[in-house]
């Protein structure tokens, strides 16, 4: 496989695509939101249980490409147990990383496992795939009624 392509489709991403974490429905979520990527037909339904400003549980359903599915899976693993403030902080950093605005290696490493998605910045048409779950997350937290669309 070409090295740039391998950078995008790292083993961790392929793994999360095949067996996504937290891929289920929460029966009585405190927060929920839907996201669409009209360009490629990706959809995500996000479920959250937020108590005392902490994300106690998070799960998702939907269909999408490997990048969008892995991104949602990695996000759910990363966010579970975090405070809302920490969550928004991670969101900002993640956005910086995938849009190529984060240049320090240390900053990227601070994102832990999410760093595997850094390769997306070389594929402008795929940035939306990686960010769909995250925009949907912010929408859910802020209790916005309308669904997220990346267009």
């Amino acid at each position, binding site marked *: *496989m070409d090295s740039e392509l391998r950078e995008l489709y790292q083993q961790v991403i392929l793994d999360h*695509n095949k067996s996504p974490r937290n891929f289920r429905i929460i029966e009585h979520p405190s927060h929920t939101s839907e996201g669409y990527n009209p360009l490629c037909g*990706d959809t995500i339904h996000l479920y959250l249980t937020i108590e005392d400003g902490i994300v106690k549980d998070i799960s998702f359903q939907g269909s999408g490409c490997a990048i969008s599915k892995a991104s949602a899976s990695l996000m759910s693993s990363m966010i579970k147990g975090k405070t809302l403030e920490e969550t928004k902080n991670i969101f900002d950093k993640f956005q910086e990383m995938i849009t190529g605005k984060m240049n320090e290696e240390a900053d990227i490493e601070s994102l832990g496992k999410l760093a595997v998605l850094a390769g997306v910045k070389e594929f402008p048409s795929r940035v939306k795939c990686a960010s769909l779950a995250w925009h949907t997350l912010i929408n859910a937290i802020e209790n916005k009624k309308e669904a997220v669309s990346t267009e």
Partner: protein
Amino acid sequence: MKSNLTTKTNEKIFNIEKIRNDFPILNQLVHNKPLCYLDNAATTQKPQVVIDTINDFYSTTNSNIHRGVHYLSERSTQAYENTRTIVKDFINAKSEKEIIFTSGTTASINLVAQTFGRKFFTVGDEVIITNMEHHSNIVPWQILCEEKKAKLKVLPINDKGELQIERLNNLITDKTKLISVVHVSNSLGTINPINEIIKIAHQNNVPVLLDAAQSIQHIDIDVQKLDCDFLAFSGHKIYGPTGIGILYGKENLLEEMPPFMGGGDMISKVTFEETTFNELPFKFEAGTSNIAGAIGLGTAIEYVSKIGLKNIHQYESELLSAATQKISDIDGIKIIGTAKEKTSVLSFIIENIHPHDIGTFLDFEGVAIRTGHHCTQPVMDFFKIPATSRASFAFYNTLDEIEQLTIALKKTIEVLT
């Protein structure tokens, strides 16, 4: 990639190496692999003669048309109007008055919706489209229906991606003002039975608009024989430039329709009290149009005509059947769109792999395909899928490239499943 494919039937015409040399863009590496351009339904590549025509126009002739009395303006006008004649002859229209330059198929359909529609539709009237229309033949009618409180009716398709033509007669009522139908589906490749559709429509006195965006480059079209009332197509799908297209309309209909846009060139006389509109076809060509694009389109049509659409269609059918065979043999692949009559479009899905991932993997093998809903979301909804991968072939493609596609697909499946 060296390719010596010549078809048995078209040996003289289909010297593929010579044809490929006409298209400079094809000779390049993408991600260090030979470019294998299979996104021809999105846009076709341009032969050197078209590129030269545009270059030559701007280098020697550029000037505004229908306005100046000077030498360049005369020459520019002549070249532009000469293209109108080329288009007229190509689709066998009765007169140049029936050939209107637009920016493309979308603009042509919107023109009809906003002029024919605005004039002839009233509350409760109906327009019939089909389940396999491109969004550009859905949305303009929705806008019209919203404005006029009219109704949009849809002719359904079957599992093969063919129209349920037997249901057309029942859809037509005395309120039906127009049938607007795609000749060839961009996402399925289906060639629709337009002779029959037009016959049924005309028995009910309903005019027909034919969206020829995906047929003009594959199938011989004779508007008089077909007896369609309107025909729309884009230059860039027939090896010409982007930003230029054609609306054909029967003269009596065009005469009755009000202008689309107001401006220069579409008037005879303007005072602040009153304006008299110019005659056909200029009535519908407000503002300075894409002159270089039009002239480039003329050259593209001449290029295609020289090879001959019958030869092109035959060769492309051979490519399609070879590709269909190869792709069907791969485990986990399902072809979407299996109509009996098809142009060289191959839409498919692979179990558990999203088309977007396929598109990126193929790109790294040099293979350019389109992935997504292809601006036909109702088709995707019908097949209950979010998207497909689509390979679409042109007469400059080869059997070697089909092999390249097949190998690339197998590699993709290996990594992603």
